């Protein structure tokens, strides 16, 4: 049976992880390779790196980082941040990324989804959506607006309509972040997740709001998500991945147990 996925997310600046973690003993918390290896051992099902490098000079640093990480860690890697074109995608895939995430560029130039899906296959094109609740109107169902540029720019686009289009154009997976719940550790926006997972047939990764184990459970059940992405819940060392996997498995969800066996040294 296909298992639900737990995906730690790291912000990367100039090739260094900038949000530290405390639950694992690290010599260098900023080193993506060491971090990735530890999370792999702990049972992370995939890893997401979000490149927040501002200067264009620093852009090459992410390619080197992907290569060093992919050379050492044999679980899927998704990389996003600043992906503008099919050639950007190609670079990341060649360096060892398995999936590439596009956000702002996909809204500004939706053909980039088709270009990526055509050249590399839908399965490696993740469309990331930052969505914010619209004020509810009496008698109307709840709706959400898509934001770009790291949540700074409203687009006027309806989130449900946009994800349908993105999937039609070739997105193989959606990374859905609620701007309302992100950073509050108070739970994911379950209505948003449910609306999107009902609207498309591709897997949905829930993001934004994880603080307690039950939040993950709710996103994977009520929200219909195939995977949960989180940063703070791991970074602040509140719960580790083996604990969360046991918790979710005990509540009846199919989870891949953390692979304690280490006969093959990685």
């Amino acid at each position, binding site marked *: *049976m*296909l*298992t*639900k*996925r737990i995906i730690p997310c790291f912000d990367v600046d100039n090739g260094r992880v900038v949000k530290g973690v405390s639950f694992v003993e690290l010599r260098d918390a900023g080193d993506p390779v060491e971090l990735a290896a530890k999370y*792999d051992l702990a049972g992370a*099902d995939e890893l997401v790196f979000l490149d927040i490098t501002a200067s264009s000079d620093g852009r090459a640093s992410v390619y080197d980082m992907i*290569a060093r990480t*992919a*050379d*050492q860690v*044999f*679980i*899927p890697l998704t990389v996003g941040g600043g992906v503008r074109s099919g050639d950007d995608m190609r670079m990341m*895939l*060649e*360096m*060892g*990324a*398995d999936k590439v995430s596009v956000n702002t560029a996909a809204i500004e130039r939706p053909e980039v989804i088709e270009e990526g899906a*055509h*050249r*590399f*296959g*839908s*399965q*490696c094109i993740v469309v990331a959506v930052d969505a914010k609740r619209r004020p509810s109107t009496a008698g109307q169902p709840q709706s959400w607006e898509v934001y770009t540029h790291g949540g700074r720019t409203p687009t006027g686009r309806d989130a449900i309509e946009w994800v349908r289009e993105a999937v039609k154009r070739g997105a*193989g*997976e959606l990374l859905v972040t609620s701007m309302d719940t992100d950073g509050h550790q108070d739970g994911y926006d379950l209505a948003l997740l449910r609306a999107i997972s009902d609207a498309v*047939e*591709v*897997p949905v990764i829930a993001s934004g709001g994880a603080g307690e184990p039950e939040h993950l459970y709710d996103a994977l059940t009520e929200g219909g998500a*195939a*995977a949960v992405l989180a940063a703070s819940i791991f970074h602040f060392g509140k719960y580790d991945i083996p604990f969360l996997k046991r918790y979710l498995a005990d509540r009846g969800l199919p989870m*891949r147990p953390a*692979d304690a*066996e*280490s*006969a*093959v040294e*990685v």
Partner: protein
Amino acid sequence: MSEVVIVDYGAGNLRSVARAVAHAGVDAVVTAEARVVERARVLIVPGVGAAEDTMTHLREGGLDGPVLDFIASGKPFLGVCMGMQALFDYSEEGGRHECLGVLPGRIVRFPQGMTVPHMGWNTVRVADHPVFEGIPQDSYFYFLHSYRPQPDEPTIVIGETEYEGVRFPSVVGRDNVIATQFHPEKSGRQGLRLYANFLRLARERGTIGPATASVA
């Protein structure tokens, strides 16, 4: 000149495949050149992407003939994901596309209404096969695909996986050919063990020399 050749037909993450081979202590060369494929002693065809593009790239690159000749030679062959699907007679992905015809059967989509792609970690139930030596039954491997094989001969099915009630062959092969729908190079320690087993078998058969590369 390396004896282990990974075929590059322009799609996907080949670096991880090369690193998984290196992890087993063997150097591999990644190539798009037919003459390198012709001299291979072990051949790996990995890949992601669409069937039509894959077959077009293989044919336009003049690689389809050398791959078929290699398989006919009896030397060890490993196909991964699209590299497995390309072995069948044809694929129904985006119309009907003729494939290599090494294994009897076709590639079909998962039924409508399912979450597709089938993406993530799933278990594999395998018959006794030496590439799975030391790998516990029902181990987890990483999958990433929307189409699945439907073989005409049940004897070529080596492993099976179930997804939303659909049971499909996730490992197929016969004679010198072994192919997986999942990505062993993305499946952690069990996946690395599969590569190591495949290369060890090649070594035991005298196809390639002893491990030479330093283990990463």
